[in-house]
């Protein structure tokens, strides 16, 4: 049984339907990447799994339990944590306070403030600093650290490379391995296809709200990905 099963999922923003019949599953311990062009529905998929956007049709099953009617905080309790697009750290809280509030509904597990500082050493000297004054890379680390404080089984990472220098991105993805080792399954939404394919064990490509391709990075050639990404129909 997969950790996460998404079955014919529809999702809407008001009148606008963003996802149509999404089917995918993610096994525990694998890195799953979701790629696709802007507006394809990647972020919507993550926010729907997290519970910020209600399910309009279909099901989301987490560890055998249907969670599509569950509240956001219930899903955190069950073990799902979201690192949202744009990071969205709390500007009027200090760095350490951001981490502490991340543990508001913490589950038992290895992650705590000290462990987060181990994984992201750059954050420790900034502990008493207001989160509003951090650089993009620091904010991203803080956002990931905050999500880890809940000890999630499933970590949803939305475009963590956005706006960051390649070196910083490399560091983030290196830390992803540590996170996996501690028992969290990451789903990454990534604009950078190369980065995604390098990090992922399996992936899905979204096009205009539908899954256009799924598979293993090793098995799929660049041309197929490009077609699925841009929606070019084969001749």
């Amino acid at each position, binding site marked *: 049984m997969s950790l996460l099963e998404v079955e014919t999922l529809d999702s809407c923003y008001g009148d606008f339907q963003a996802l149509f019949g999404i089917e995918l599953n993610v096994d525990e311990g694998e890195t799953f990447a979701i790629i696709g062009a802007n507006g394809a529905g990647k972020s919507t998929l993550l926010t729907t799994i997290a519970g910020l956007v209600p399910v309009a049709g279909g099901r989301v099953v987490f560890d055998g339990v249907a969670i599509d009617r569950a509240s956001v905080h219930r899903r*955190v309790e069950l073990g799902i*944590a979201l690192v949202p697009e744009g990071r969205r750290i*709390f500007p*009027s*809280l200090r760095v350490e306070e951001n981490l502490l*509030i991340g543990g*508001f509904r913490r589950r038992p597990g290895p992650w705590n403030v000290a462990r987060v500082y181990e994984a992201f050493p750059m954050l420790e000297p900034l502990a008493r600093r207001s989160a509003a004054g951090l650089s993009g890379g620091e904010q991203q680390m803080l956002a990931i650290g905050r*999500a880890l*404080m*809940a000890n999630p089984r499933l970590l949803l990472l939305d475009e963590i490379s956005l706006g960051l220098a390649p070196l910083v991105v490399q560091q983030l993805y290196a830390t992803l391995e540590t996170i996996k080792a501690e028992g969290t399954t990451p789903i990454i939404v990534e604009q950078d296809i190369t980065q995604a394919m390098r990090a992922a064990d399996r992936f899905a490509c979204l096009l205009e709200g539908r899954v256009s391709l799924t598979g293993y990075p090793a098995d799929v050639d660049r041309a197929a990905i490009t077609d699925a990404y841009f929606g070019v129909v084969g001749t």
Partner: protein
Amino acid sequence: MNWVNVIVQGVLLGGLYALFAAGLSLTFGVMRLVNLAHGDLSILAAFFCFTVADTLDVNPLLALILVLPAAFLFGYLLQRIVIEHVPRFDVLPAIVVTFGIGIIIENALLQEYSADNRRLLVGGLQTDTIKINEQLSVGVMPLLTFVAAIVVLGLLHLLLTRTQLGRAFRATSDDPDAARIVGVDHRRTFALALAISIATVALAGVLLGIRTSFTPFAGPARLIFAFEAVIIGGLGSLWGTLAGGIILGVAQAIGAEIDPGYGVLAGHLVFLAVLVVRPTGLFGKVAAA
């Protein structure tokens, strides 16, 4: 004219105004709710205290042991049962609802207690004074009131900065959706915010009810004082609110000293002046517009 005395009285009163303001500012910060029934709720608490003190034949200050938890519970239920269900796509419904609740409270109190003036009597404490020097005497009750206000504000500060609940309040104030994804249940958080707000304004209502007389219709004036203290001090800062309250208290005291009819008006004028000259308030972090 003993200006030192006047200013000291103003400062002591100002602490109480800050206590009124704290709850209003908390609910606005956490859930963007401007509670127009805020003042009426303080009067409700004062009348409730009156009844408890009367029925159990105890000092109103002792009755607080019952009044404060009751106020806390009332606030929690009010949020969960009524305000939670008010549509928030626009500011109007919440304004109308809280305004309506205020009207209901005023008239229910009128029905139950009549329009007579009431005062909470605490015996000797009411008139005791402490003589500081030849120029200056300070009433024991005003001093106790000020100290109580500072203590409660201090406790609120500790709550906001040292507890998970306080962090949840601040996080929700920054970004409600981001707060949800770290597991904050915002229905419970909002309810606790309103509960604390009403508990603090209940204390303030009782303390003011000891100081001056009140009727079922004294609510709006208190709402206005709380609001003026918040705006003068600036949004987003608890200690700014204290400063705002003190400035308001001193303005009113000076105005009243010039002419008894001008006290409250002087406060309004200072408020309007701050609004025109520095809309973010004297110590504000966030604009009210």
